[in-house]
């Protein structure tokens, strides 16, 4: 069908096209013919953005002891176009590299797939991070190597032999980092692990730039607009960790030859005083250009020294978990302070048996915590899950239980300011419905004593202890105490109250105090201050894990600590003595001679883990 009515509009549309093209031609004429400014200035002049790197922030411990700092290093740069008549042999000798390494590096630079920003006119990174001594040798002969330049950089240096997992490390950005964030260019450094990664924006500062003019041959002609557009780099901010370097060092010593973790928290503030993950590694291994090879080696190690078990490892909490159960039963009215349950060497009913060791029976909550009675907490959970007056179904009961656990910081990430945190596992009704179909209280009873499906990270155990020390609240644990010219995130300063009242916490504290005075944690007792504690002995496929959590002093807690030693046996074997030493070191600032001897003996006690993959 023809549409003659509007056919005239073809002239209008054609007219628009004509107008566009004509006005662009006029504009072209203006730019190219009449305007000499562009021609003369642009003929062969162009900008060169010379990046100036800021110094990365230093890292201190809570007492102001320097942990991480910067040291100047030098990158050898190359402009391919300017390389001519190079005496390759002499060059390689000066830099102490082989000829094949030289050729390989040159090939890599030219490979556009691996180096997308390649241009023969701009500086390309030839050899990163040579030391000041190597640089001085190279500098003397540099005039003979046309096209090679030096760029000043800084590398990270560690003033401590400890704390590798918390500090983390820096390395060259990956292509993915460059893709994700426009700030980075290939060859820049970025925090890869630990606080180096989680506080990257604070530590890195802001790159500066000099806008230089240069001619077509790349010769610098001076600053563009006399430097009006130059930007000074903004140095990175210094961090103060909440870690106490002495406590950290002691913790790492004590954990030598063992696997596991120690986390200590200052309950009032949520500041992490030490975070040990064993096996660990010397942070010096991550310095400079050896990092790649060291990383490879550690990643192949079956003991996984790179893994931060304190936040990434999930373990059955064992008996330390019983405190949280007692609190829940009290708040829900399942038990009172005087409710007593029988324990005939364990929890025995309807053909079900959870074993326990010998102690008086029946007994109420406080001694049940002190003696770590399995029967007591199994009965508590049994009565809670089967209480049909209070909860319509067992699903409702377990949902209520789960809500208590979540309010105590289990089952989800706590939000510590380090990368790689695990959330652990708190089962809910849906989980049991899917896994077990029809199920009853007896089938899941072992969660009452921290076994079965329940897993926590050592950080979550320490946080449980801090919550008890605070009588009912915690502050998200964190490792950074202060940021230069700033402050830590608000989310790390708010109180999280659990669903349990303070009065009930006091009963659990009493139980934990009694455990130290006359129960399972007897060896943690200290004459100078009142210690409260709870052991844990977690069953697993191999030998039991040894766990302990405790805080001191009882009335004004300064430190809450959790110790977890894989395959360490009873809680009292490794957990209690290690925890006691950590508390003593922090509260007294030093160890007594007797304790020092004890520490040395624990340092040399190794556990045989075999060589299987973990």
């Amino acid at each position: 069908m023809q549409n003659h009515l509007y056919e005239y509009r073809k002239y209008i549309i054609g007219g628009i096209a004509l107008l566009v093209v004509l006005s662009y031609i006029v504009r072209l004429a203006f730019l190219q013919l009449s305007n000499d400014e562009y021609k003369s200035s642009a003929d062969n002049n162009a900008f060169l953005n010379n990046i100036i790197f800021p110094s990365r922030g230093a890292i201190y411990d809570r007492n102001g002891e320097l942990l991480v700092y910067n040291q100047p290093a030098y990158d050898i740069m190359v402009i391919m176009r300017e390389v001519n008549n190079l005496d390759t042999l002499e060059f390689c000798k000066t830099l102490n590299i082989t000829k094949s390494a030289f050729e390989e590096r040159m090939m890599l630079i030219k490979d556009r797939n691996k180096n997308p920003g390649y241009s023969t006119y701009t500086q390309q990174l030839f050899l990163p991070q040579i030391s000041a001594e190597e640089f001085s040798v190279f500098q003397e002969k540099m005039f003979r190597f046309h096209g090679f330049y030096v760029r000043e950089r800084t590398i990270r240096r560690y003033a401590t032999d400890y704390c590798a997992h918390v500090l983390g490390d820096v390395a060259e950005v990956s292509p993915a980092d460059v893709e994700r964030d426009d700030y980075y260019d290939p060859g820049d450094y970025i925090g890869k692990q630990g606080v180096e990664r989680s506080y990257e924006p604070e530590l890195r500062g802001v790159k500066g730039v000099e806008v230089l003019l240069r001619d077509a041959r790349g010769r610098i002609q001076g600053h563009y607009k006399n430097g009006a557009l130059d930007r000074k780099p903004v140095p990175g901010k210094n961090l103060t960790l909440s870690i106490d370097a002495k406590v950290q060092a002691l913790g790492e010593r004590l954990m030598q030859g063992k696997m596991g973790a120690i986390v200590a928290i200052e309950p009032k503030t949520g500041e992490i005083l030490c975070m040990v993950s064993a096996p660990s590694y010397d942070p010096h291994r991550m310095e400079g250009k050896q990092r790649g090879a060291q990383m490879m080696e550690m990643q192949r190690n079956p003991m996984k020294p790179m893994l931060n078990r304190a936040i990434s490892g999930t373990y059955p909490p064992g008996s330390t978990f019983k405190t949280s159960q007692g609190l829940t039963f009290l708040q829900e009215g399942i038990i009172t302070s005087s409710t007593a349950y029988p324990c005939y060497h364990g929890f025995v009913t309807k053909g079900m048996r959870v074993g326990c060791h010998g102690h008086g029976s029946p007994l109420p909550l406080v001694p049940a915590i002190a003696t770590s009675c399995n029967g007591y907490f199994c009965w508590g959970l049994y009565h809670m899950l089967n209480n049909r007056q209070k909860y319509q179904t067992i699903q409702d009961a377990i949902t209520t239980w789960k809500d208590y656990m979540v309010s105590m910081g289990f089952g989800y990430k706590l939000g510590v300011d380090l990368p790689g945190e695990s959330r652990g596992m708190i089962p809910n009704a849906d989980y049991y419905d899917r896994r077990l179909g029809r199920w009853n209280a007896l089938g899941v009873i072992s969660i009452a004593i921290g076994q079965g499906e329940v897993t926590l990270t050592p950080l979550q155990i320490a946080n449980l202890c801090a919550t008890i020390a605070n009588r009912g609240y915690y502050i998200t644990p964190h490792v950074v105490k202060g940021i230069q010219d700033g402050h830590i995130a608000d989310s790390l300063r708010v109180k999280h109250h659990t669903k349990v009242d303070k009065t009930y916490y006091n009963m659990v504290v009493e139980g934990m105090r009694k455990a130290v005075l006359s129960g399972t944690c007897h060896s943690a007792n200290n004459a100078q201050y009142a210690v409260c504690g709870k052991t844990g002995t977690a069953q697993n496929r191999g030998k039991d894990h040894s766990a302990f959590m405790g805080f001191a002093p009882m009335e004004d807690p300064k430190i809450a600590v959790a110790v977890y030693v894989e395959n360490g046996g009873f809680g009292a074997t490794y957990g209690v003595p290690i925890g006691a030493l950590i508390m003593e070191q922090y509260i007294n600032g030093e160890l007594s001679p007797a304790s020092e001897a004890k520490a040395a003996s624990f340092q040399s006690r190794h556990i045989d883990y075999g060589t299987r993959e973990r």
Partner: protein
Amino acid sequence: MTEQGSKGIFLSIDWVTIMLYVILIMWGWFSVCGACYDFNNPDLFAWETNSGKQIVWGGTSLVLATVLMLIEKRFYDTAAYVIYGSMILLLAITIVIAPDTKGSRSWLPMGPVKIQPAEFAKFAVALALGKLMDKYGFNIKNLKDIGTAIGLIILPMLLIIGQKETGSALVYLAFFLMLYREGMTGSLLFTGFACVVYFVVGMKFSDDYITNMPVSIGEFTVLLLAMIFTIGLVWVYCHNTYAVKIMAYTCFGSTILAMLFSIYVIPFDVCYVMLGACILMILYIIGLAVYTRIYKYALIAAFAIVSCSLFYLSSTIFDHLADHQRTRIEVLLGKKDDPRGAGYNVNQAKIAIGSGGLTGKGFLNGTQTKLRYVPEQHTDFIFCTVGEEEGFIGAAGVLIVYLLFIWRLIIVSERQTDTMGRVYGYCVLSIFLFHLFINVGMVLGLTPVIGIPLPFFSYGGSSLWGFTLLLFILLRMDAERNLKRK
């Protein structure tokens, strides 16, 4: 198809268009060579270089073109909606499965190459529009019909915006030019034009003040333009000279009085008076609409309301744009002078073109582009290379070939025997015109920096195939024009 038919078709192919197409592709290839030339790898035909790959894209495009010439128009007539539906589906899926590349989710990895479905969706929309408007009884004045047509255009736009490719989505606005040809009232086109003018003027001068007066130049100009446009519309569409006189005296009179008062007595913000005058004017037009029952008055009143509120609205919209888009607009409007930031591309592009002079520096001799000072110089900023290496003569030449190409497409479209062919043809030429307008405009610093390619010139397989697809479907339809419809 009979033997006679095939022969007839061969003779009816529009060889002029094909010739222009080939010229543009070859010219484009030379430009890509210039933009990507690498002194270390001087082999222009090597697969590792972009110029080598572009040969492959060009070659496959010719194959694609040949295949397209074999597909009868009847097929598109039958399958138009199916193609449209599948494309919409593909666009939607792309949002979900495409990997995030610098914030955009529009590239689908297919083995060694990546394709951008948004480049291929245009022809599907054009076909669907053709099919819809070819329907018996379709009337562009009918609100439901035009609504459906606009819906067909908006849907893929939204999906492409969802892929964070606002630039590619804006291309679909070109279809309104086709709607205009098909009888959409010109006032709609005018309204769109007016909105752009308001936005640009309002934003550019919002923070500048008239000397010695607390009056924002942007606000003042926008309100003044709103008055002029509104009164103009009443004059053109309603022929009510009396009303025009009353409005003109009130608006301009009050404005001038307010200006005089502001200059000689007490300086104050004249815009308040102008806004008052505008509101009076709008009320008056609404009154006319109610009194005379002529709906045009109501539409004009709506236009006036939009005009007056747009300045205030645009600041709000502006604040909601993504940071890089806002910076780009600010740089374009000259509010920000930042040779290293967002304006860097445009500034470098101007230097590159400016240094070309009358005859250019010669093939492969451009230094500005060689030094990689212009980012994306082989894709969106390819016109720089033309300007630098081939000078004014080359750059103007490219524009003239494009003009011929578009002129030829108008002829081809107009001689179609049915609405589907004509609508499709106008869709194609509108898209080419839009790309030319925006792409060359941004390189010359005249239009916003929207990342869309220059057809046949910019490096890239997706865009080359996409444009070939668009064009050759039209050429095949055109070749069938002399056949009787079965």
